[in-house]
């Protein structure tokens, strides 16, 4: 249910709801008014009932269901000068009240007060006519009249969508209180995606006795107590004088869970029940593309603990929702997808070489130059480059024909309309091929001698107990880049990370062509039988951009009881991460890696624990 009202509703509505629901019950001694009870409003929405009214020289009030007292969620009394004036009483003798309680049985409810004067001990009881409120304007008016108590109601009512809408409506119409001794703050950025969620980013200072909330329209409300927090030097400098140590951890990121159409969101402070709007910001639409979303959110630099918190509870949750709901099916983007073949395809190829292209095109030159001098690749392999970077499409297309004419080796290029990330791009390339063996190959792996793939494929076909065959890769200086992977625990990330034993050292003196048993291998150069590739579900596309999908893939293969081998080659050079330079370095890269590590940990943490404990034993 969604509605919008001006502050306190219109005049007509005010007139309409000015009527008390019941006549007051007044107790006289002689002709002197001694006690009284009056119910102003009974608002019932979704089994939560608010009763407001006033009483004269009484204590209470209490709610009864038949003979049993109902436990109230919240109850407060306050002065009612209007009542005192109307009955010519001292101000302290007339008290207004507001009660909130949960009510499943709506009949036989009473409001009861106990007289505290000459009628001491007598009770006054009025029946409550509890019916689901259809006129939400009345409810809105009641909430507006009780801004100073709204803060007490919010924790109880915010779980109910209709109440949330009402509260949001009230809050949206409150003026902004930029300065308050107990809190300060500002919403710097809010972006979201309909039905997925979003993030609010800003800073906030709050006295421990107070609370901060983010409340927006369309039922969005969340307390900042669960937000990721970090120190902000700028805020510390500016506000330390006013707020002292409260400035620490001022920066915040808060996930907003799935919502519909949004307009505003408010940073709300609650001090002794009174609600203040500290900052208000208009929502912006975030990109539904997970990589674009990550680029936006990871622009925000926070320290390690806050980053972990963000990745587990905030940014990462939204990213995961975007990734797991699948690649988009944007018709416009699909229309832009294409594939092009250069040269005659190989008939009955033995290996499908699947190469995602990102950032750099020049690797194609070095790779194709080498492929063309390798008889096995030239005659038995299909080569598929899948472009995963819109920035290089034109360059790849313009170079491809020339590369084919120059090197004379057939290959195919494809583009799916958008940047898919390493896993999806590799899967896409693999599925365009038909060869029974699949070689996942990074564009920055350059072979320098022929014969390696023929040898790997031959070995793979003879050893069916192996599910995956990786390869020893070297750095340009001849040191080992990869010769199988294991995992090590990274306390700062609270996750296992992939580790390359012997990385950077001179290669062991193993015979070229030997295969070594390893725990995991990198997908920079990974040979697998197509049937195994498909049966384990290909590379998991829920990793962002490219990380951990290779170890995830190997762990899936291992879980089928198959072994992982690493082919000892001396001629495969890996210009590690060169193909990823374009996705950014430093903090963005770290955020992506941390995010993927968290996903990987949640899937395989126990399996890795078991493996490591077994292998150590």
């Amino acid at each position: 249910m969604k509605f919008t009202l001006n502050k306190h509703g219109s005049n007509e509505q005010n007139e309409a709801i000015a009527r008390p629901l019941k006549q007051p019950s007044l107790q006289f001694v002689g002709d002197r008014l001694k006690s009284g009870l009056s119910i102003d409003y009974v608002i019932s929405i979704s089994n939560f009932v608010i009763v407001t009214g006033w009483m004269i020289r009484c204590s209470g009030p209490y709610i009864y269901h038949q003979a049993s007292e109902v436990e109230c969620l919240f109850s407060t009394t306050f002065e009612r000068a209007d009542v005192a004036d109307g009955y010519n009483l001292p101000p302290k003798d007339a008290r207004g009240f507001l009660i909130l309680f949960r009510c499943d049985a709506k009949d036989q409810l009473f409001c009861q007060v106990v007289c505290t004067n000459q009628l001491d001990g007598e009770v006054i009881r009025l029946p409550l006519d509890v019916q689901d409120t259809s006129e939400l304007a009345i409810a809105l008016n009641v909430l507006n009249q009780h801004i100073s108590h709204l803060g007490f109601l919010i924790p109880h009512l915010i779980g109910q969508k209709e109440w949330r809408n009402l509260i949001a409506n009230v809050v949206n119409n409150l003026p902004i209180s930029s300065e308050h001794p107990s809190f300060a703050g500002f919403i710097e950025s809010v972006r979201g995606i309909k039905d997925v969620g979003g993030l609010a980013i800003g800073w906030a200072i709050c006295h421990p006795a107070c609370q901060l909330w983010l409340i927006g329209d369309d039922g969005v409300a969340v307390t900042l107590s669960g937000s990721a927090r970090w120190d902000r030097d700028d805020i510390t400098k500016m506000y330390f004088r006013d707020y002292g140590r409260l400035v620490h951890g001022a920066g915040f990121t808060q996930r907003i869970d799935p919502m519909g159409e949004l307009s505003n969101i408010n940073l709300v402070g609650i001090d002794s029940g009174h609600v203040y709007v500290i900052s208000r910001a208009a929502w912006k639409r975030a990109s539904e593309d997970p990589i674009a979303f990550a680029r936006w959110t990871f622009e925000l630099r926070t320290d390690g603990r806050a980053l972990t918190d963000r990745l587990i509870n905030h940014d990462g949750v939204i990213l995961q929702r975007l990734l797991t709901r699948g690649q988009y099916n944007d018709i416009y983007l699909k229309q832009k997808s294409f594939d092009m073949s250069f040269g005659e395809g190989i008939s009955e190829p033995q290996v499908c070489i699947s190469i995602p292209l990102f950032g750099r095109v020049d690797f194609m030159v070095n790779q194709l130059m080498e492929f063309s001098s390798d008889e096995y690749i030239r005659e038995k392999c299909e080569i598929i480059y899948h472009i995963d970077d819109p920035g290089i499409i034109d360059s790849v297309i313009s170079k491809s024909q020339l590369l084919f004419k120059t090197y004379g080796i057939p290959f195919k290029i494809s583009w799916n309309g958008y940047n898919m990330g390493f896993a999806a791009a590799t899967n896409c390339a693999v599925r365009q091929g038909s060869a029974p063996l699949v070689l996942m190959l990074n564009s920055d792996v350059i072979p320098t001698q022929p014969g390696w793939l023929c040898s790997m494929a031959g070995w793979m076909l003879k050893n069916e107990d192996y599910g995956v065959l990786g390869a020893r890769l070297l750095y340009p200086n001849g040191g080992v880049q990869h010769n199988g992977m294991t995992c090590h625990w990274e306390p700062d990330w609270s996750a296992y990370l992939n580790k390359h034993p012997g990385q950077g050292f001179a290669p062991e003196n193993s015979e070229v062509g030997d295969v070594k048993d390893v725990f995991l291998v990198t997908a920079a150069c990974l040979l697998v039988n197509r049937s195994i590739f498909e049966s384990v579900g290909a590379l998991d596309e829920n990793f962002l951009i490219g990380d951990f999908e290779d170890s995830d893939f190997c762990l899936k293969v291992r879980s089928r009881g198959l072994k992982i081998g690493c082919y000892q080659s001396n001629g495969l050079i890996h210009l590690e991460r060169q193909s990823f330079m374009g996705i950014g370095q430093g903090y963005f890269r770290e955020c992506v890696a941390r995010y993927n590590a968290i996903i990987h940990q949640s899937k395989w943490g126990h399996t890795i624990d078991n493996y490591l404990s077994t292998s150590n034993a």
Partner: protein
Amino acid sequence: MKVLIISHAHPMESTGGAELAAYNLFEALSLNERCESVTFLAGSSNRQSQAGSIHLLSRNEYLWAYNDMDWFRLTSGTPDALVTNFRSFLVRMAPSIIYVHHYAHLGLEIFREAKTSLPSCKVILTLHEYLAICNRNGQMIKNNSRKLCYQESIQECQACFPEKTREDFWLRKHFIQRSFEHVDHFISPSQFLLERYIAWGIPREFTSVIENGQKYYGSQARVSTEDLASQNHLRSIYKRFAYFGQATEYKGIEVFLRAIHALSPELRRSMLFEVHCANIDQQGDWFKDLLHELRTPLVREGVLRWVGPYDHNDLAGRMSQIGWVVVPSTWWENSPMVIQEALTNHRPVICSNIGGMAEKVRNGVDGIHFAVNNFVDLAERMIYAASNIDVWLKYVKNIRPTQSLKRYGDDYLSAVGRC
């Protein structure tokens, strides 16, 4: 046999050592009876022609218009032309030997293309400087310190060009070496340069050293030293020192000028100095300002003649008027044409004691070495050289004949047998 000579430029457009060496080979082989036909294909920067097009310049001479190449990877700026115009040209000419004198401007892809189009053709590349080894214009000089670089390494190259990654340099070298695999034989005009390339990765068995051939112009060059000494107007020839060449930073012209400044005024007024240089306008302002500052007082003093650019046909005449040729380059050089030209014209050389210069000039025999970049040392060597005419005559007499065009052509043809 049908021969094709490919040069990165035509001497008509540019008179660098490599294009002169290439054209000299063209002339030498054109006169050689063993050659059925000789064709010269030169890169051309002439913007009147469509980039990538190949067109006739004169009988047996063609120009190949190019666009700016990728100077890091050394790849063609008109890659389409390689598999179209160049491929057609090769098939039409059908040479059995291709001598390539430089791949600058044209791109390394020409080697693969030559072998793809004409698999049985022999491809012989003459190395003219260190372009494949060093991204700094092939000079093997450190980018920041400007110190001499002795050997390529990915780490050191990346330190010179921090905007590139180490992997970029690996890819560069990988591409160049793979392109060189289509070359059947490498010729270097100097042993020094050859050793650098062997250290870089070219197998020694695929290499030869053949000096560039020289053309003899006019009669003055062949005048005997006795005749020269007896001529009155040349009586003080041994006190005349000249610099010939480009006015670039690494040719050491400022070392020469500083050395003149280092001489006492009385001494330098008893000597004469000449600078025959070209392309000063193409240099950076700081360098032009430096040269202006150094030369102006010397010209005013009357000890320096700033002669300016020269045509190669004038060279013998100009050299006949001076006693010593100074080659003060601060980089390694290969086999500087000016040294060969000086020796051809019977003029001893005072040169830096490094690289191709030290190899081509025999210290104390037909020339004098001085410590590279050390203008005080150069000044001392010039004082010695100008001490009396007998010193000069001794050096002149020791000069050996340089490589003739005939021998040059023969040596190149014999290199085919080593493919």
